[in-house]
């Protein structure tokens, strides 16, 4: 069964590689075009009197040209493959996004404790005991270093404000 599906899987992998690389090249080209347009909008000025848009305009042209070169010559490159552990990356990114959102609303301490605890338990497979201890210590240390020692003002914290 495996060997019958293998050529199909390989072809699918090759197709996805190609799509990824073409998308990358198109993204670069797209950003280049957008930048050139933004530079034009900002007023390119003349060579004797450069306007604010001259430099972005030049960069935009360079990016567009490079994007097209990469599209033509480098779409056959193989991207680094995703592994069966790749979900961790997106889980981590999602967790950090939630963290920053909460941080803004309820201050640093609770989100810090929660993030460290959840990360250590779910993503690093540590025991409950180690996770709780490390999360507590981390939250405390961040408080001591940033709030007490460095005297930085944070959003109103539920625990200590």
């Amino acid at each position, binding site marked *: 069964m495996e060997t019958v599906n293998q050529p199909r899987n390989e072809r699918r992998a090759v197709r996805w590689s190609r799509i990824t690389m073409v998308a990358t090249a198109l993204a670069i080209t797209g950003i280049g075009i957008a930048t050139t347009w933004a530079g034009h909008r900002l007023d390119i000025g003349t060579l004797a009197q450069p306007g604010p848009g001259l*430099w972005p305009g030049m960069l935009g042209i360079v990016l567009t040209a490079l994007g097209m070169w990469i599209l033509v010559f480098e779409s056959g490159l193989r991207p680094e493959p995703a592994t069966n552990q790749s979900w961790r990356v997106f889980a981590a990114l999602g967790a950090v996004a939630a963290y920053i959102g909460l941080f803004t609303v309820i201050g640093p301490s609770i989100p810090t404790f929660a993030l460290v605890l959840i990360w250590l338990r779910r993503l690093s497979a540590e025991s409950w005991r180690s996770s709780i201890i490390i999360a507590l210590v981390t939250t405390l240390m961040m408080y001591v270093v940033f709030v007490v020692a460095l005297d930085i003002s944070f959003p109103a914290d539920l625990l200590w404000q």
Partner: protein
Amino acid sequence: MFDSIIFGFQVALEPINLLYVFIGVTLGLVVGILPGLGAGATIALLLPFTYGLPAETAIIMLAGVFYGSMYGGRVTAILMRLPGEAAAALTAIDGYELAKQGRAGPALGISAFASFIGGTVAIVGLTFFAPTFAGYALRFGPAEYAAVALLALMLACTIGSGSFARALAMVAAGLLLATIGPDPILGTPRLTGGSLELYSGISIVPIAIGLFGVAEILHYMERSHASSLIKSGLRDVLPTRSDWRQSAGPIARGSVLGFLIGAIPGPGSAAAAFSSYSMEKRRAKDPSRFGKGAIEGVAGPESADNAASNSAFIPLLTLGIPGSVVLALMFGALLLQGITPGPQLVNEHPDVFWGVIASMYVGNFILLALSVPLSGVFIQVLRIRMGILGPLAIIISLYGAYSLRNSTFDMWLVLAAGLAGYVMRKVHLPPAPLLLAFVVGPILENSFRQALLISDGDPGVFVTRPLSAGLLVCAVLLIVWPAFRRLRGARAKLKAKESEHQSTGSEHEPDVPARLG
């Protein structure tokens, strides 16, 4: 000249600077040993904290982290064949073989000593060469400055192992990011999209933390490392007399080679290490020993890359042009202090200039004293699992980014940069040229526009002035040469495909090589 050196040592030996060089060097050693967080990410994390320190103390500490991490990278390279960074890759070859033979002790010892000699030679060169060069650089006009900055960026594109076009695209992206914010001459807001937070531009700190620190942690989470410490006991602990004898030549040659290569912005310590390795291999009476535990393969590259990492300060301190990511971050640290590095630094801020140079002697000495006896302790440090270090580093990153200007926007930037760094790595877009270009961008644009303003719009000013013309020719060659080879290769393949198509009548996908140029 000697008054300046003595003045420098007076600065470097002040108690606060001694304390901070010790902190920096120890941090660097630990960071160099631990996988994941490199010198770049650590220095980026420390940037917000340097704001409250005096300028020379800040740079002294950050420089200490830098060359400390180079030392630290050796430990994992020799003991686990895991280079801490690119420059240690060669030490990992012969060093690991020596460790397998039970000779990890001598390998570590020679490596520490070679680094010390290499670093000292470079610092001596720096002491004598830098002020002269700064004096010469004062005569640079804006056209020359723009040309040098451009050349530095082009050189940075050549050092990676991937495609030149991709590196160039990242340079353009970095220059673009640097454009966000107020126009430097006219003040108009550019590329801010009406956002208030972007109005004053983007700080290097969240970009660096995200692109190098967070992205590295994310990448690590995806892989599982199967690495084990050497199980065989340490047969010898100290290098033997024949080790010293064999290493003397490579150390001497490596130091000078490293000094020269490091002084050019771009190539960096990895290039110095590789050059030294190939030089020693070619000079050796029995080249087949290399790769199987030749002590010269450790001594030469070690002294070369430490020499290069010290001499890399020359373009930063004299021209104000950083040659690598780490130096770009030091540049950022100086900017946070309100100091713009350039040829005038030696005159306007002699305490920073000479204090940093003198402190490098001190730091190198501390490293030698620390690394030999403490190697055993550091091996224990390796036991901290990356699974614990990852979230801690992320938390520190986020707090640090926030504390820059009490803004959660910078935390979002860290997240975005981390995601970007992860994706970029997947599609082979190198992050280092982006960061370099981000830092060099304002220099390049300002010089470019000033040159045009002075010449009243005549773009010929860049080629009529001899120095500027020469530098530009080099820069253009660096771009054109790989493109030319690529086109020629594509044409040859097209011809081959045509003739094959005629003879076999079959079609298949053209094979695109993974390397360009």
